[in-house]
């Protein structure tokens, strides 16, 4: 049986273990809450982890599709990008996949049911996911900076507009070949 098929059969176990690894990154009380609370609206972080990891697992079984991969990674990373994690800590969960696979499929690997080639291929997919996750993380942090700038601008937007300053600014920008103003 191929790695994908075995993995598909052990889907539940794989997801439970992965979820556990994810919540272990939080203090014990928090980890307990993230696991216990099943209502997706009372526990949005747990929800996004669930949706993210099951989506990613599906992709691994069926092949990583770039657009989809960033969507599922985004579900998880968008949250971690604003929590108390360094970038490395925020993205560690992707790298956990290799160890996790070898843990869940230990018997099959030992018995030779899964070849070294298959493992190498899986690792390559994890690498690809890791690379995509860098993009996603950076995009989240960039969005935050963009929001900050917008917020500061909007605070005085109407006053500047009224004073006729914004029109001047957008005209100058257009003259210098830049894209429109604030309007």
């Amino acid at each position: 049986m191929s790695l994908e098929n075995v993995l598909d059969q052990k889907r539940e176990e794989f997801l439970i273990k992965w979820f556990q690894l994810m919540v272990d990154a939080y203090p014990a009380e928090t980890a307990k809450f993230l696991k216990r609370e099943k209502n997706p609206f009372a526990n949005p972080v747990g929800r996004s982890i669930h949706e993210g990891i099951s989506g990613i697992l599906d992709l691994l079984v069926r092949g990583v599709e770039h657009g989809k991969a960033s969507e599922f990674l985004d579900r998880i990373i968008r949250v971690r990008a604003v929590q108390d994690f360094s970038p490395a800590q925020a993205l560690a969960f992707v790298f956990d996949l290799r160890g996790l696979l070898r843990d869940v499929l230990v018997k099959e690997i030992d018995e030779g049911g899964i070849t070294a080639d298959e493992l190498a291929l899986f690792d390559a997919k994890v690498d690809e996911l890791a690379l995509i996750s860098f993009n996603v993380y950076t995009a989240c942090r960039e969005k935050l900076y963009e929001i900050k700038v917008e917020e500061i601008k909007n605070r005085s937007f109407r006053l500047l507009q009224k004073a006729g300053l914004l029109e001047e600014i957008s005209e100058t920008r257009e003259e210098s070949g830049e894209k429109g103003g604030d309007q």
Partner: protein
Amino acid sequence: MAKIPKASEMAATLSHIPPQTGWMDTPTEFKQGRWCYGAKAKNMEVLGLPNPRDWSPTDADWKLPSNWKEIILEGLRERIGRFRSLRLFMDICVRCGACADKCHFFIGSGDPKNMPVLRAELLRSVYRKEFTTAGKILGKLAGGRELTEEVFKEWFYYFFQCTECRRCSVFCPYGIDTAEITIIARELLNLVGCNIDWIAGPVANCYQNGNHLGIQPHAFKDMIEFFVDEIEALNGIRIEPTFNRKGAEILFITPSGDVFADPGTYTLMGYLMLFHEIGLDYTWSTYASEGGNFGFFTSHEMMKRLNAKMYAEAKRLGVKWILGGECGHMWRVVNQYMDTMNGPADFLEEPVSPITGTKFDSAKGTKMLHLVEFTADLIRNGKLKLDPSRNDHLNVTFHDSCNPARGMGLFEEPRYVIQNVCNNFHEMPPNTIREQTFCCGSGSGLNTDEFLDMRMRGGLPRANAVKHVHDMFGVNTLSTICAIDRAVLPPLMDYWVPGVGVAGVHEMVGNALVMEGETERTTDMRGEPLAGMEDSEDEDI
């Protein structure tokens, strides 16, 4: 086969090893994006606040007065005597944990000290050590803790990570209100000069010029006249608002955010259009030019000082009663405190709608009526000509702002108004609305940009519920009746649920309102084409 280490087993810098110590022994680290700048000396001086100096929470030395500890403990002793509820809240918590996972900051951050019970425990532990026999003798064993500089800094960090939203109190079997504990803790912090500048600045401006931005009367008037022009461009109707007019029947007060920042400005245009259409005899005040009251986030005394202008101005102008716009904490102050604090306003009359004759019992004490109640009554009595299809380009949900919802029980009126001016409306899940509504994550003076990471965490539960109705029903508009919400929900949506905009309820009223003598409407107030008018828009430009 070589075993691959888990990420959590790798070097500490790579993995996230959560603290395994108990909460009391877990030190607080001031990380960027999680705390607000300290109040500036100049703002504190204007207000006569103690210990004015320029300082930063990341400085090792906070330049506290040498007897800071005595000041705080004396302040606590005095407040425990003055506020019976505080003593009760300090004594009766049984740590059942019912509130623990109900705070949006805990849910979004995963930081256990954002659990309401632990937030309160920060203060309670010091109370136990200093004011209870068990705590004095047994110390830590009885949950007591010495007030050290570290503990004090931890207070600053976590009491400025509570939006005083009161969601936790809904779930506490004893009705313990952690928001009240935060309010007291912030008062104590203020006794030695530890406020945040995002609060002290607006308070100082308000105290000097009447509004948060410190806009002077002529500029305030100019701004409103600017919107008069915008409305005329929109539908050909010239509105003539009056300012500081003595003898007007009604004084209208709204947060200044509606005057100066989008999308609140569209809500303001809605107010102007509505009042014009029904021929309301009202006036604006350039002195009471701010409904918001950041004094409430500083101390009881400061709240009173800033609130005083409402009645003072009503008296000076000789109006009969006050009508208040869409705001959150303004209503908490008005409803919970104004009457006893700066009243009784016996020179005012009980609000009666001049259009329908309805008497509003809800405003009997304060003589200040919520605009949404007023508008709902107009609609109920068939006094408005409305074309809800003008909002067909909007697919709307409603965010109950903490203060009007949990503070006033204002659940039905906004929904009634929305459903009369919009055809597409979808509620968010029940455990995220009405009394259980989730805070925007930026209330109580924490809507500043240096606090953005924390705001995004705190706003996650709200955003998550919006995402649900966005995905399920295609909701593209989050409506609200709070000025802070109008300022902070757009960035929240931008991060978590792109594609959802934010609108005040009276913006949508303004869109739907059919005014006498209006020219054909092709766009909404933002210049967006109305449904079915997508082509005619080009001609306008």
